[in-house]
């Protein structure tokens, strides 16, 4: 028990050195390893300014190739010093396949799993809820063959 207490103290010391949750490369490390066993493939670092009045929220766009019969995980982590809460959306051309944000309920999930049945190139859009200024990292991970 004493050993665990010491390790907890060490952990918090390291975390404070890490600037845990802050807008830097450490956010990728923390986010990629807090992923329930999915295997990291790539990350998308996003930093966007607050939307101007009467303008659409700024959006960052990326492309990824996904393969059939494979489950992928899209998750995101927000930097603590910004108000923005990341919304990750997955598109196949013009069709939105999934989003962390459910407009009907207002719920924003930390991420979602996507069971891909069509090999191809997909677009990922990352923006911040209500057009707030934000900094976040999106992580694409490989979950496995099964759904």
């Amino acid at each position, binding site marked *: 028990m004493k050993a665990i207490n010491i390790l907890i103290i060490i952990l918090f010391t390291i975390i404070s050195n890490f600037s845990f949750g802050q807008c830097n490369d450490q956010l990728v*490390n923390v986010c990629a*390893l807090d992923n329930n066993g999915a295997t990291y493939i790539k*990350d998308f670092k996003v930093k966007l300014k607050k939307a101007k009045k009467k303008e659409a929220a700024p959006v960052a766009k990326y*492309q990824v190739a996904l*393969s059939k*019969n494979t489950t992928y995980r899209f998750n995101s982590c927000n930097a603590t010093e910004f108000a923005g809460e990341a919304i990750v959306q997955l598109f196949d051309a013009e069709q939105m396949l999934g989003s962390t944000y459910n407009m009907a309920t207002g719920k924003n999930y930390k991420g979602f799993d996507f069971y891909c*049945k*069509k090999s*191809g190139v997909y677009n990922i859009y990352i923006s911040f809820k209500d057009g707030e200024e934000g900094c976040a990292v999106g992580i694409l991970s*490989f979950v496995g063959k099964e759904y």
Partner: protein
Amino acid sequence: MRKRFFSFLSAVIILSACNSSNTNDVSQDLTIPDSVKNGKPLQISEEVMENMIQNISSPVEIASLIRSTGMPYSQKYICKTDDIEKYDSNFKRAIGLGILGADLGYLNMYNKTGSVLGNLSTIKSIADELKIGQFFDFSTLKRLSVNNENLDSLIFISTQSFNNMDSYLRESDRTSISALIVTGLWIEGLYIASQVVKENKHKDLAERIGDQKIIINDLLIILRNYKSDPNFASLIADIEAVKERYADIKISYIKGEPEAVEKDGMLVIVQNETSVVEMTDQQLADIISITEATRSKLISL
């Protein structure tokens, strides 16, 4: 719970150590390929190029798919590092680095820590020659590779090292090197997958090989950007020969609407549009054959 805590803690400590080593000065004085640095305009924008490079499948994903087939690990699929250590130009080294990156994904996925060390050592040496060695913290990766409990961290840091290196190359106007690394990664991934299929015609893996028809066009667009360089021209001809074997393979699509379900508190999106690869045994055999020849040529450069 205690095990998970210790795993997380060790990952945090290791990553803390890693990040202190990424600050070396890097010389921008990379001399190849000179012929593509003579002020000739790129035919496609860097942004498009970046997207295309991002689209090449991850070596970890292919390795994971191979492991899921139940096929055992085989050392014979892996490139001998001695061959790559002899490379005497940055063109060859960049392709070699990609080949080793794909092999590393395969080794990691099968937890072959002994072979990982040799592979990592060569990666570090080649990356240093290419002035991108600062992205590989060899001592940390070595420490992780001898500790099986940190496999997730090993895979994460290995993959991230390649991703960061690729981003750096593109940000510093050395996309040509990035394109060569990606080509090496792609051909080696295809080679390993095709060798596994040769021994056991696993349906999903065979389909994944057929799927590469989607990727090969992007790869050629990237490479053609540097076609004025004789080395690139030769490489383009090799990859075009692979593309020819894909010409008659058909990929068709069946429409369907995606469904969203919540499973154990997690949002799960199930795609109901499907792709179907139509490929005969002969077409698959032809792809395996041309892949073997192309990979053999590349590693004996």
